[in-house]
């Protein structure tokens, strides 16, 4: 699905998203894995034109609420990484990747 993102201006964001997804899926914490899995599935639906930016943003806000609860439950030294692999990952997808996927699907 990310193959559809060929815009050179978002090359860095695409690379960052790929790295964060790989990191999240490789982590032992189930929350990171599930969040990454759900995010990938929604990105596929966006790329097929089955969800729009509004739907995606709604999903992201819902996930961010759940992620914040998860982050707060982590020890202080683990919270920065947890934030990066959840909230930051979701925001990169919503603000940088989804607009390009939607434009490509039109």
């Amino acid at each position, binding site marked *: 699905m990310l193959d559809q993102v060929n815009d050179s201006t978002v090359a860095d964001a695409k690379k960052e998203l790929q790295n964060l997804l790989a990191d999240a899926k490789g982590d032992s914490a189930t929350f990171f894995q599930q969040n990454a899995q759900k995010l990938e599935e*929604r990105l596929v*639906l966006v790329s*097929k034109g*089955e*969800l*729009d930016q*509004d*739907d995606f943003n*709604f*999903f992201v*806000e*819902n996930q961010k*609420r*759940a992620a914040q*609860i998860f982050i707060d439950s982590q020890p202080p030294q683990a919270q920065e990484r947890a934030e990066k692999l959840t909230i930051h990952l979701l925001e990169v997808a919503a603000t940088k990747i989804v607009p390009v996927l939607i434009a490509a699907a039109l």
Partner: protein
Amino acid sequence: MNSKDTIVRNTFLCAVAFALASCATLTKPESDVSFENLRAFEISFVDQYAVLGKRFDAAAFDAKVAEGNAKFQDAMTNEKFKARRPVLKDLADQFKAEAAHLRKKASTGKITKALAAERKRDINDNYEHAIAKKTE
């Protein structure tokens, strides 16, 4: 042990198992039932209004949302354990956000099959997290 003893023993064991299962059902916390009722209501709400091509009836939609809000308010009022009320409040806020999103999509004819499926999946996940959280 003769066959009569075996039958008596098996009957006794079945009776014990049945009694234990009955107790488990009867002692299920009241708020679990409440959470399940709210979940069922919210899923049926999505089933009713996130339908591709269905004409949007604003009055009926708003009445259903008001019914949902009242259910959440009742659940919060009747929850005996104060610590569980914030969890119900989170679910009530999620329902309000869900309703606002669905209203926007349904009233502009932008419902897709994927949207309905994904909303129900998120609702179920939210309730799973809420039920786990309130029993921590």
